[in-house]
């Protein structure tokens, strides 16, 4: 079964695959900043060169008890448990937008601590459960 031709093809293929994996690894590595769908508040605090005129996305968790609604304007704080970023937004929010849940805001940075969003996306986590169970869990916590 293992004739010379077979060996030749096998080694050609393994070389091709190794080469491909290395190439894809480097391509993905150099594109990391483009692949990231959103930046975390920590990324923004740590980065040196922020372009304030360019649209970016910031993501994290909506801080508990931070949502403040007055006159169609919604203010809340995005946190990644290390750094925080205040966000201001006017418009409709998706149904899943709520305190303690993931959120992605699209818009422009005003300074390192203040962000004006023109689009809000809710980020869903990987947990799925029926509503009765959630109520039970809430009761147990209390």
């Amino acid at each position, binding site marked *: *079964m293992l004739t010379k031709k*077979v060996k030749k*093809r*096998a080694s050609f*293929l393994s070389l*091709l*695959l190794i080469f*491909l*994996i290395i190439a*894809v690894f480097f391509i*993905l590595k150099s594109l*990391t900043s483009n*692949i*990231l*769908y*959103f*930046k*975390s508040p920590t990324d923004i605090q740590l980065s040196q060169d922020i372009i304030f005129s360019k649209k970016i996305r910031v*993501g994290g968790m909506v801080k508990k008890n931070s949502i403040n609604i007055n006159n169609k304007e919604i203010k809340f704080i995005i946190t990644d448990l290390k750094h925080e970023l205040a966000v201001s937004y006017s418009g409709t*929010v*998706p*149904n*899943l*937008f709520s305190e303690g*849940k993931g959120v*992605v805001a699209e818009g422009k940075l005003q300074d390192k601590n203040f962000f004006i969003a023109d*689009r*809000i*996306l*809710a*980020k*869903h*986590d*990987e*947990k*799925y*459960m*029926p*509503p*009765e*169970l*959630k109520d039970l869990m809430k009761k147990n916590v209390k």
Partner: protein
Amino acid sequence: MFDLINPSRIFHWIEKLINFINSIFFILLIIALTFALILSPPDYLQGDSVRIMYVHVPSAWIGLASFTSIALLSILNFIFKIKNLNLITKSIAPLGLMFTCLAIVTGSLWGQPTWGTWWAWDARITSMVVLSIFYILFILAHKLIEQEDKANKVSNIIAIIGLVNIPVIKYSVDWWNTLHQPSSIKLDGTSSIHPSMLLPLMLMLLVLLLYCALILLMKYKTEIIRIKKKNIKRI
């Protein structure tokens, strides 16, 4: 070893299998759909749109699994030149493309009520689009190249190159920040889906897998007939 899948010998087995799957398919489909659409509870956050998941997740799994098997068979075929494997990969490809597109479309339908957008160019979604492009290239190679040997060679190479994309899709949600949530069912078997929702998911997976087997066998049968028509006694 490869005698087991010798086309001329298993022809009547294929017939029997097709009839068997046909007889149980619709019963299972009705059971799975009842669980998925009526008996399972709505989600505590998403409400009824969680039911889209029962089609979306199995479709995505099947899309990935089909391409992985096409690529692995292509590697075998490229090294050992077993012509029969070409018939199998050729039969899997349209199914895989269909389920990949189904996963993308249902994901988009789910994204609108939950995320608030139809489309996002995040790593998971983009890499799934790349997967569907690889499927299309694979199928086009067979359709456009007239010489069969050359078509087989080109499509094999396309599948092997596309294999690198598979781990990127799988781990995209862990490597980068994405809008898409990480997987609920981990490879080690733990899951963050409540059992009352896991059951319909697994039932739907079973039904869709049976559907795949059915279409695959029918397609494989036609490919064998096509070859027999060309009066080739042995392949």
